[in-house]
């Protein structure tokens, strides 16, 4: 079974600065997808970024980028130029061909003005 671990329950960052959220996972599969979802106070889950395991190039979406280290089974999220609207819970998730999306426990990010 796959597991996803987010070792930082809470983090804070000053507005306009950069923050990195950590995620590690455990799997024996070679083909899979990794995701970061954001859950603001409204509680709707919003896709932030996704990475295909077969791609070596790290995914980037505007101010959000990942550092995908397949051998180390690490998938961290970097948020640049943090904005107040980035305050949310962030969930790392893993999905393989078995249709299961496995979530980490989440990291609560607070962006301070």
């Amino acid at each position, binding site marked *: 079974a796959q597991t996803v671990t987010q070792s930082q329950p809470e983090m804070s960052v000053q507005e306009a600065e950069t923050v990195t959220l950590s995620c590690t996972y455990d799997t024996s599969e070679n083909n899979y997808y990794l995701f970061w979802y954001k859950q603001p106070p409204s*509680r*709707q889950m919003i896709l932030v970024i996704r990475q295909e395991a077969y791609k070596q190039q790290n995914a980037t979406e505007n101010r959000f980028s990942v550092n995908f280290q397949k051998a180390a089974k690490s998938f961290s999220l970097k948020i640049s130029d943090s904005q107040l609207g980035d305050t949310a819970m962030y969930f790392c998730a893993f999905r393989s*061909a078995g249709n299961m*999306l496995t979530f*980490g426990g989440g990291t609560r990010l607070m962006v301070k003005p």
Partner: protein
Amino acid sequence: SQTIHQWPATLVQPVGSPLSLECTVEGTSNPNLYWYRQAAGRGLQLLFYSVGIGQISSEVPQNLSASRPQDRQFILSSKKLLLSDSGFYLCAWSRGYSTDTQYFGPGTRLTVL
């Protein structure tokens, strides 16, 4: 574009009462559909998923059941609610192939008293 709806947004029910939560998807056909539960301050737990009308897979034994009477409609039910059924219920959809991104609805907050 595709949209996903859930209702009701909030529900307060007494222990032992029945439950019916509805999820519908627009703008796509033959989606995979999912029900998740999120306890307060925790990650998401997959409850059910469906790859087609009448096809339901259960991931955990529980007091709940799911049905898919139409292609883009997914219903979560219970005959008798328990206190432990309280939580935030999220519906999600993805395209037919197994590693595609899941997109989430706005969720239903259920409180069982």
